[in-house]
Structure formats: structure tokens, C-alpha cells
């Protein structure tokens, strides 16, 4: 839906590499996580394999996240995640209106992609929430489950491990929902596949 003539180079190599690895690790973690959660011998991945793969993928995702975090601190990519609070709600409303009504009327996107603004207000909100709140929480709670001795023993009569477990599952669930919506919204490019091509070749 975005309208621009010259292709913009928005995704440098490190971002593209980080993104594809992040996607693969998340997908692996969701599949193995579901296999652990609803484990029985006939489900997608056997429990023992699922646990091992989940642990390894979790550690790799954490390392990958650290690269992303440091990369955002030291490159201009981090600026895309910082947004002006003033007037944000009306911008969010306008973007929401576009996705729910405007898009069906073939209206132009209210916040077209530019070099200075890669994300629309809804993307900003969801990406910041996922990358700076949910993913760190899922990593920390995952560490707590991997090394249960670091979790608190007892809070209000319930083991700290139970809270950690619940938090890990909640965050994992949010990431799953996010991935579904994220992949669907990626079909909102010039063509259904153009945004997928962009994250591979770097040009929008």
C-alpha cells in the first residue's frame, strides 16, 4: 500500500541476518514449546527431543537478542524504536482505521515507509512491546526454568518456579500471536510477497 518510486535500503545485512535467525528460533521455540505443553507420544515433537531443542533454541535466541540489543544501541536502527509520545494516540487511531477500513477502500497508508520512519505507529507499539518487554521476559523466565535454583522458593505459598512458568507461557503465547499477525501484515506490501522479498534483499 506504501507508495514510493525509489527503492529504499532499509534493512542492513546484520538486521536481515538477525531477523531471519530470530524468526527461525521463534518458530522452533513455538513448535517445541507446544510439544512440551501438550506433550503426548503422538504430538509433533517427542517430549525428550522437544525439551532439548527448546533449550538450545532458547539459548541461541537469547544470544541473538543480545546482538539485536547491542546493534540497536550503536546503530541508527535503534532510533526506529523510539517514538514521539505526543499525538501518538491519534496516529495510532489513524493507522488502526487504515487497517480496519482504509485498506479495503484501497486508501493510501497514512504513514508511508521512509528512511526516517520505518515503522507505522501500530508497528512501533507492537515491536517495542515485543522486542523490549516480551522477549526479555521470555528469556529471563526461560533462564529461571532452565536453572530453577535461581527462582524464588516460595511466594504466598506458591513456588516461584510456578510464577516463572506462568510468565514464560504467557510471553510465549504473546510471541505466537504476534508472529501470526506480523506475518499476515507483511502481506500488506505492494504485492503480497514484496515485504518478504524486502527483508531478504534489504530494499523496500
Amino acid at each position, binding site marked *: 500500500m506504501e507508495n514510493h518510486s525509489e527503492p529504499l535500503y532499509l534493512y542492513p545485512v546484520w538486521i536481515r541476518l538477525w531477523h531471519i535467525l530470530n524468526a527461525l528460533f521463534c518458530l522452533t521455540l513455538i513448535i517445541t514449546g507446544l510439544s512440551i505443553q501438550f*506433550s503426548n507420544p503422538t504430538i509433533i515433537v517427542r517430549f525428550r527431543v522437544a525439551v532439548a531443542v527448546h533449550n538450545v533454541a532458547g539459548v541461541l535466541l537469547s544470544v541473538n537478542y543480545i546482538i539485536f540489543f547491542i546493534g540497536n544501541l550503536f546503530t541508527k536502527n535503534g532510533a526506529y524504536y523510539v517514538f514521539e509520545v505526543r499525538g501518538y494516540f491519534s496516529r495510532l487511531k489513524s493507522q488502526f482505521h487504515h487497517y480496519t477500513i482504509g485498506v479495503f477502500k484501497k486508501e493510501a497508508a497514512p504513514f508511508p515507509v521512509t528512511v526516517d520512519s520505518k515503522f507505522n505507529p501500530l508497528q512501533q507499539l507492537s515491536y517495542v512491546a515485543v522486542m523490549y518487554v516480551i522477549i526479555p521476559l521470555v528469556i529471563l523466565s526461560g533462564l529461571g526454568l532452565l536453572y530453577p535454583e535461581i527462582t524464588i522458593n516460595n511466594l504466598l505459598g506458591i513456588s516461584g518456579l510456578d510464577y516463572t512458568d506462568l510468565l514464560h507461557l504467557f510471553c510465549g503465547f504473546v510471541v505466537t500471536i504476534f508472529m501470526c499477525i506480523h506475518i*499476515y501484515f507483511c502481506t500488506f506490501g505492494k504485492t503480497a510477497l514484496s515485504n518478504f522479498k524486502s527483508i531478504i534483499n534489504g530494499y523496500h
Partner: protein
Amino acid sequence: MMYRANIRPAWVVLVLLLFFAIAFALVKNSESSSSTKKAKSVEKTPIVNLDQFPTNEKCLRCHGQSKYIFENAESKKISYKRMYSELIISRNEYYISNHKGFKCTDCHSEDYSIFPHPGNLRMEAKANCIDCHGGDEKFSKFKFEKIDSNFTASVHSQKHSEEFTCWMCHNPHTYKINARTNENMQETVAYDNLICLNCHGDITKYELLTNKQQPNILKKHDWLPNQATHFINVRCIECHAQNKDTLIVAHEIVPKNLAVKKCESCHAQNSILYASLFKYNVQENIKTKGWFKGLFLSETSTIGPDQNNTLNIISLVLFGLTILAILIHAVIRIQKSH
């Protein structure tokens, strides 16, 4: 001549007396030597008057050891025979078992006091648990009638009919109440599982009832995560029997295809583990430690919030709604683009 004639009979009498004396001495000597031999041989395992023992000891003198000794009534020879292992009763186990107060002949025929035992006694019908414990108010808390009906519905009873009796699993000579009295959960688990492994881990006993090849238990449970931990901490019947929370020990063993295989069946709230043994344990905890400590700080908990059924349903509904919303949005988009 007269002199000669007078002397001769005296000599004859003397020689005869001497001969009888020697013969008597020889016979005596031989008798005493044979009785010494006998005494020596009996000294090893002396035949003792059985009447001096309490009633059960009369039986256990033979049935309490791996060999027995008896005198052949016809040849008068002393014989040693090996006692058939199934007929050996361990004194140590019997005298601490629940049935220790019984005389052997309370359950077995009085005719067993005859030796050699009459052959027809082999066909003697043996009493089952329910024959003594059924309908007895004193044993009502053990729910023998329920156990009996569960057992009748079990795969053991269904497949093997009357061949399979209570004694296949519970040896009346060693049976000791365990799940209700033992505070060590792992010991209870080991005790219970040994009952199953008696046949399922011993091909000679397994083959008594079936022509099927005995499955390798470890291989059959290969899918089970942390197999050793499960085997140490979970009773076989927890997954292989229809658990009813009114019974501590489930007796309705189900066919293998109905055995529990899903993790969440146990690792969830209101799981089957809570149905019997653990539920009982929690109740006992509440009794001994009080409501708060016993219930909330119970160490027997195997639940995790991740297996809260309500949360599982909510998350699945939310996920379904997200996918539905995406699909509706996509369909409208495609329609509008045409």
C-alpha cells in the same frame, strides 16, 4: 570213663554258653554300631518330635526351608528332598505379615497334617480375599467388595478368568498392608511395582498365563521422559489402572491401549495422580500438618500452572480468534481487490 563222661557235658555247656555270649555280644555290637551310625546321620538334621512345636512350625519345618527330610515308611531310609520353591514359606516374612496370626490349617485343609500329604489336597480350592474379608464391618474401610468388583472388570480377570486370583499379585503368606501405613512414598511405590514386576519382569511366571512373548518393559516405556524417575516415583497402576479416588490401590487394570500416555493427565491440576495415592497423601498431610501447611505447602504436588486447563482453553480460544480475524480480514481484502 565215668570221670570222662562227667566232664564232657560240662565242657559242651561251657562252650555253648561262650558261643551264645560271643554271638550276643556281636549282635549287640552290630546293633549299637548301626544305631550310632543312624544317630550320627540324624545328628546333622535330627528328626525331632514335631509335637513340641507350635502348629505352624510343624509345617514350616519342611515348608520353611529349601530342603526337607523324611523317613521312607517302607524302606525305612532317611531321604532329603528339595522343596519346590513356590511352596517355601519364609518365616521372617510370614511372621511380620498381616496374616501372621493364622494357623496354616485355618486356610489349608486339616488333612495336611498327614504326611505324605494326600494327593487330592493339591486340588484344594483356595480362599480368596473376599471369602474372608467380604461383608465384614471390621474391614469395611478397605472396601474389599469394591476391590473385588474392580478386579473382576480388570484385564487380568477378563483375560485369564478364574486362573487369575488375588494370590497372583498378593502373596497371602507375605502380604503386608503398605500404602496406608508407610509414610515413605518411594517405598510404597517400590512395594507396589514389585507386585507387577513379579510376573511382568519374570518370564517364567509371565508364561504361566500366556503364550505371548514377554514385552521388554524398558523398551515399551521408551517414550516416557525421565523413565527412571517415573519408575521410582510412580506406581505402575497409576497409568495402567482405572483410578478411582475412593480406593488407594486401584485394581481395575486396563488394556494397554487405555493406559495413560499423556503428560498432562498427571502433570495437571485434578490429575489422576490426585485421584488416589496423592489425594490420600494430601488428606493425611492436612490431618497431620493442618490446613495451610498440609494443603498449600504439600510436597506431593505435581501440578504446574502451565497445565491449568482453564488457561489452556483461554489461550486456545484467543489463538483461534486471532486466526479467524486474520482469515476474515484476508478474505475481505481479496474480495475488495477484485
